């Protein structure tokens, strides 16, 4: 049962990811990215990580992709507007992709081997209480650093978007 769901989800994930790249209409590709994110949330659920799955949906599907769709819709990108990239850019993109793929492969090949059989230890790894305790005890410093990073990004965005009063007066 779990395996069937996994393969179905994996097929959806890969299919929509490919659609994201290949569809010519930017809205369609954004929407297939949304479906892709949903199927990744499904993978999290399969791994019994409810919190991660839901947060993934809230943050990626619910916020980031909506903002992305906003920009695409407002800019009214049509497939006619798609400009032809120069050959050099295409070659550079291919090389960059190959390099990233190589790094990823090299990294992933050295990870631990797949555990053949899972067993149920009864220990609670995923409930939000456990996660909260771990985050705010063991990983307190990185957690706070992440929040400071977000705060800085937010203030920076506000500063950039704010009109320069002196300039507008002149």
């Amino acid at each position, binding site marked *: 049962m779990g395996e069937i769901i996994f393969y179905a989800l994996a097929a959806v994930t890969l299919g929509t990811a490919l659609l994201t790249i290949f569809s010519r209409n930017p809205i369609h590709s954004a929407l297939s990215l949304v479906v892709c994110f949903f199927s990744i949330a499904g993978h999290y659920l399969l791994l019994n990580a409810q919190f991660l799955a839901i947060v993934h949906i809230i943050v990626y599907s*619910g916020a980031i992709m909506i903002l992305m769709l906003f920009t695409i819709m407002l800019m009214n990108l049509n497939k006619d507007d798609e400009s032809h990239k120069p050959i050099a850019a295409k070659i550079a993109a291919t090389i960059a992709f190959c390099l990233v793929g190589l790094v990823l492969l090299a990294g992933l090949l050295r990870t631990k081997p797949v555990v053949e059989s899972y067993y149920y230890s009864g220990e609670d790894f995923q409930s939000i209480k456990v996660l909260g305790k771990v985050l705010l005890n063991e990983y307190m410093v990185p957690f706070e650093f992440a929040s400071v990073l977000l705060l800085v990004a937010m203030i920076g965005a506000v500063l950039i978007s704010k009109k320069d009063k002196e300039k507008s007066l002149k």
Partner: protein
Amino acid sequence: MDSAIIIEKGIFILAVFAITMFMAMYSTLAERKIAAWLQDRIGPNRAGKGGILQPLADGLKLFAKEEFMPSTQNTFLFVLGPAISMSMALMTSAVIPWGDKLEIGGRTVILQATDIDVAMLYIFAVLSVGVYGIMIGGWASNNKFSLMSAMRASSQMISYEVAMGLAIIALIMATGTLSVREIAAQQSGFWNDGWFTWNVFKHPLSFLIFLVCSFAETNRTPFDLAECEAELIGGHHTEYSSMKMGFYLFGEYAAMFISSAILAILYFGAYNYPGFQWAVENWGVNVANILGIIALFVKICFFIFFYMWVRWTIPRFRYDQLMNLGWKMLIPLAIANIVITGLVIVLTQ
């Protein structure tokens, strides 16, 4: 898994679905009736006694209407929009506890479809995904007014989601759980330890912010700019006709019912009523819980009425006022509320 529990949950989910649809259906009648009463009119009274069959007549009319498709290549997305809107409105009801428990033939039936650990987050996830219904529908209509209205509606929804989430955080800090069922259970009875147990008396500010945000989330007046007829024809569903249009409208009413339910459960004691414990001891679990379900529905109906009452009282906001209220008033207020709640928790422990 126990097959009995699957059957039990299946029946329960079907019942919840049917009740939600029924309530959404009759909300349309209630909307028109209450609008009429508040304006010293009578309202629809031709279909059935006092207009009681009006929703059926409306449904029949919508089904019989001509199905019109705008000239667009995005037929699939055009159909997907109302479908998402409707299903997201219905999905939230999965984590709502409609009652505590019933005892039927020695079995204890929990009156909730599923009790997940992160129910509050689930509600927010579903809410944020619901924006897609409006956005996709508005875009696929191939009409710039639909698109503009969809933009308005969705930017309004994602702006107010922030304030809504922050308002809820204060509540979650105090209750110490994300499970809706536990939040409901913590408000049992009415009076305990010298203060009311219902959250509205403990977190009035949080309630107020949440209330305003739920008006914005359901796109109801005074935040119904998306359907601002004078500027945007009919809103994001301008191009929709027949039952697709009906799905959007129906989804809106279902969302209104669900958000009323959430308001009642989070802040107004869910299925609890004064003397719940006494009723359990004297009349048995079943009677007390059926009374509890009735109490919950009374509260939900009050909130639905409140939605309509406000609709005919407060005029529509301007768009900049709406955004100012959301970002400059409600979010700072919600953050202040979090700080105050945190201080109170630290000081009382």
